[in-house]
């Protein structure tokens, strides 16, 4: 299976820069998945969760509050304003990431109903990890 180069950047640094099998992004018009060799595409992202299917088929979830994605044939660049990766070695680390993630969601003032959905999503993502 082909893989795609994925870069996720925040103003405070790079949070993901590696190859992935696929990535699911929370676009403004709805969620969409990107596989390798996707046609060029640029769109905005809203608050939500990015699911990355890594090369070893494990899934990593990253919560974002706003972003823009630029897909071309070779790579996917995601620029986000705020992001929390839900990952960790131990249960407590995951719990901490979850807390940070919730803080980020609460800081997004104007996305009303979307918040609940996103909250639920990250909870389930965290549960999978534990």
């Amino acid at each position, binding site marked *: 299976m082909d893989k795609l180069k994925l*870069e996720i*950047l*925040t*103003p*405070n*640094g*790079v949070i993901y820069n590696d190859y992935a099998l696929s990535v699911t992004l929370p*676009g*403004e*018009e709805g969620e969409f998945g990107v596989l390798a060799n996707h*046609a*060029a*595409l*640029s*769109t*905005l992202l809203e608050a939500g969760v990015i699911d990355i299917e890594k090369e070893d088929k494990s899934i990593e979830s990253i919560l974002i509050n*706003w972003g*823009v994605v*630029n897909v*071309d*044939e070779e790579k996917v*660049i995601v*620029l986000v*304003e705020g992001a929390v990766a839900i990952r960790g070695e131990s249960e407590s680390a995951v719990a901490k990431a979850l807390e940070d993630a919730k803080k980020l969601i609460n800081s997004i003032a104007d996305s009303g109903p979307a918040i609940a959905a996103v909250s639920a999503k990250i909870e389930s993502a965290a549960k999978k990890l534990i």
Partner: protein
Amino acid sequence: MANLKDIQRQIKSVTNTQKTTRAMKLVSTAKLRRAEELAKRSRLYAEKMNQVIAEIAGRIKCNKVGGIDNRCFTKIENPKIIDIVFVTADKGLCAGFNIQTIKAVNKLIAGFKEKNVKVRLRGIGKKGIEYFKYNEVELFDEVSNLSSKPDKVRSDEFISSSIEDYKYGKIDGLYIVYNGYKSIIAQELHVNQVLPVATEQFECNEVQNSVIEIEAQDEEHMLDSLVTKYVEYNLYYSLIDSVAAEHSARMQAMDAATNNAKEMVKSLKVEFNKARQAAITTELIEIISGVESMK
């Protein structure tokens, strides 16, 4: 020969100055490290942001994607009014750091004046604002205490009116002028044309000829918010970069001042010793001649 006491006082004062400048250098070094770290982390994001914008702009230029006619990506012939945002420090004592930016702004203004373009000057940082006020150049907008403590919310607020004005056609261009960080001992002046997004440098090559798909529903909205973020981030990054540069400039200036003070103390000490020796010699001569006369 100068008075012994006078020289002593002078030495003391120079030593005090030296202490102050050394302390300021140390403070700047510590602050620089932090600012540098922040700038380094943001640089990558800024670069990617520019890259994404450039790519989109390039594709728009080459393909006229879906007939997009966004003002932000169109080169404007004969601009009438433009905004210049300059970033200077709030404090002085950093050698030519501020004056370089001011000179660049003046040059830019002069260039536009020749073309009969009206310039709206928007200042960030006390030093630049003071300069232009003193020279009776009208400032359209000003904000201080932002360049020393970059704050995303405040910088967004500051630039938002320029973005709005641009979108509604009140202004035809936006420039950001600031002195950025190059290395620990060098600063680099940046004059960035932010709006309209420059598209000249793109050649339509094959990669870019592939049609870009922009989520259909609302491409205007997508480009609009992307450009807004792009401009906002550009200003924020300018602020961060400028702080790092300011500290590096101040560190250098204070280092030079400390060294100068050291030199000065050295030469004053020589003078002091000479004066002291002269005083002793005079006293000796007085005593000897006194003894001689009593014989």
